[in-house]
């Protein structure tokens, strides 16, 4: 018969013991009078052990006291007598259903937080943070922009014209921070705004613009982002979301990456709303300047090329060019104010990146 082993949880001494199964489970050392331990059956629990042994603990004994038996007969007898072997404090497996349900609830809460909570928080926080705090943010990003695109174009005539243009916009937009425009060399027809009022137009976009009205619409759109503080909001939103997603899900299964993809879909829908508002801001500015809005639509159309059969997509972050063009044409008014730049200035602006 395999020996029955007992460890009292006070010392590492290994004792070969005998069991007497009476009122309680009595553990005695052969040759000794008093019992080493006496365990009530209902307090005996099964814990982890090798596959061929039954290892027991007792909730009424020192927590690490262990009884280990390999003998099948004794094993069966214990199973018969102890009613709560797999009760609380045992090594019984946890209910998968409970873990799964709790995970599902937690995941739903996080998704709700990411979808509704964080954008709301970002908007509220962005309103609370003074504009002056945005400046260092922009300053931090700016050097990276220049490592990618190189220095801003600096032909003096063009710079003067660009500053004049942005000043006209600022006169009606009245942003609390002075916008600081620049043109960067890139084939990509695009423009973007940094937090803190820096607005960059890429030379690819400038090359496609045919009149100051077209360009000023884009500039006003970007200033709309500055006014809405979209850069700051996006930063808070992305930071918060990445944090939640990254920390809570870990990357054990790599689920972080997939959730990241989900985040892009999510953020696209928020961006779409922001773009529409920036367009509305541009329309308002153009109206105050007394300039038509249709040329901006024409420029957008020129950049995106002929209309494609586009189905609405979750991933698209800008409103459809056709929709935007229609909106800009609907709000169009014949010019009532003076031209923003004269022929000479416009030509200088177009040549801003010439060396």
């Amino acid at each position: 018969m395999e020996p029955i082993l007992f460890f009292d949880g006070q010392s590492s001494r290994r004792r070969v013991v005998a069991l007497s199964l009476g009122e309680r489970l009595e553990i005695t050392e052969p040759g000794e009078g008093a019992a080493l331990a006496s365990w009530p059956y209902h307090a005996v629990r099964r814990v982890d052990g090798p596959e061929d042994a039954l290892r027991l603990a007792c909730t009424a004994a020192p927590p690490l006291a262990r009884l280990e038996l390999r003998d099948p007969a004794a094993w069966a007898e214990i199973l018969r007598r102890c009613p709560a072997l797999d009760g609380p404090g045992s090594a019984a497996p946890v209910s998968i259903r409970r873990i799964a349900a709790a995970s599902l609830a937690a995941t739903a809460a996080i998704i709700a937080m990411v979808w509704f909570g964080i954008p709301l928080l970002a908007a509220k926080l962005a309103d609370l943070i003074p504009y002056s705090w945005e400046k260092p943010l922009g300053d931090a990003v700016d050097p990276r922009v220049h490592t990618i695109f190189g220095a801003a174009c600096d032909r003096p005539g063009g710079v003067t014209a660009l500053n004049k243009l942005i000043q006209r916009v600022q006169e009606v937009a009245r942003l609390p921070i002075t916008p600081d425009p620049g043109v960067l060399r890139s084939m990509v027809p695009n423009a973007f705004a940094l937090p803190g009022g820096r607005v960059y137009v890429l030379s690819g976009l400038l090359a496609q613009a045919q009149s100051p009205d077209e360009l000023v619409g884009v500039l006003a759109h970007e200033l709309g982002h500055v006014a809405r503080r979209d850069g700051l909001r996006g930063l808070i939103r992305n930071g918060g979301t990445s944090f939640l997603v990254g920390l809570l899900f870990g990357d054990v299964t790599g689920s972080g990456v997939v959730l990241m993809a989900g985040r892009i879909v999510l953020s696209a829908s928020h961006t779409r709303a922001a773009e529409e508002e920036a367009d509305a801001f541009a329309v308002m500015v153009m109206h105050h300047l007394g300039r038509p809005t249709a040329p901006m639509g024409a420029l957008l159309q020129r950049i995106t090329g002929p209309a494609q059969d586009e189905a609405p997509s979750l991933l698209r972050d800008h409103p459809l060019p056709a929709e935007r063009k229609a909106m800009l044409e609907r709000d169009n008014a014949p010019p009532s104010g003076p031209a923003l730049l004269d022929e000479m200035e416009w030509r200088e602006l177009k040549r801003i990146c010439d060396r």
Partner: protein
Amino acid sequence: VKAPKPVFDESFTIFPDPETIMSASSISDAFLLTPVTFTGRNSAFRRLVTRGALLELITFGFYRFWLTTDIRRYLWSRTEIDGDALEYIGRGKELLFGFLIATAVLAPTFLVYFVIGLEVERYKSFASVPLYALLFAFSQFAAYRARRYRLTRTVWRGVRFWMTGSGWSYAWRSMAWGSLLPATLGFAYPWRTAALERYKLSHTRYGNLPGSFKATGWQLFKRVWWVWLLWLVPLLLLAGGVAAIAISNGVATRPPAFRAPKAPGAVVAAGGAILIGSLMLVALPFLHAIRRAREWAWWAGGIRFGGVAVACSLSPGRLIGIYWKLIGLGILVFLGYTAIAAGLTAVLHYRAPSGGLPAMLMQGQIPIWGLASHAVMYLVLLVALGLLARIYILQRVWRRVIEACVVINIGGAAEVAAAGDTVSGFGEGLADGLDFGL
């Protein structure tokens, strides 16, 4: 007492020092070798981790706390020292709570980290890179605290292991030694490992029996220096070859009058270097097995608890098969993934309205089912690779290392009084939150 005759090949094993021998209750005890055995079945572990991986998928990763716990319970309870199995008494719930607390601590930390990074970036682009060092220090702190959690959940013969010492003190040591690594091309590694193991083990206790680490950096260096040198050769050859080709191509595009006459020779030499470098990459699994085997044996041989010592004779051949199986299966899994992903992409391409996939990507109009199926494919790939890693890098290697070890003078642990108490899973949570694969 005369030094004992070596039982194992000396290059693999470190012997009990005279101190250990003297502290044994009797001479025969001192030379008594007690086997350490692993009784687990591979199939049981395979089932455990496969089921766990599927549950991880279903629970969005939350099951990882319970899976980690189950893996440890399996490994511990099948590891027998002198016939008595270890017991892991940690629970998944503790890991979950530790993780939640760690999240609460990490959130403001990351915010401060972000703000500091922003301030630094203002002065110079990419100047915030040294801040990663801080995160590394934090992860070392977490590693120490996580080890403490695991130890206090490890029980043998009704007495637990535990640990004193400070996580910050450990992190500081790890950083200081780590800063020597690049300067010495990695040759400081043995001394770093020895110093860190010394710190960890001299703060480890089994009941009231203090642990210590007696192996030295020099001993490890003697065992692995040539492996590391051979490892560097293919990397340096590859880097050199690529650089040479780049340079000679730069020369070749110049007008003929400026072309250096020995350019073709340089290209041939560089091509040769790349070829040799690539061929030697095949040798890396072997080199890795040798290094790992020698390092495990060195490490185990340095462990002491009071007068109890460990000796280990792990031959590299025991690990090479495991690594090749892992590589082969990994390649198979990856090929399967590539084939299915390519098929999926092709379907997307041909179902695209006009202009095919590129146009669709440009407009950001991928249909949701395409996105979802790619995401699922990717998850399945990661789960499969994770599964292979757990089976081959964790359980199979564990088995080999355990089977290669013996305990010397087990009598020194015959009657150790229990001491120490449990600590929370905070450290494990931190380590989970800071897991950058370091």
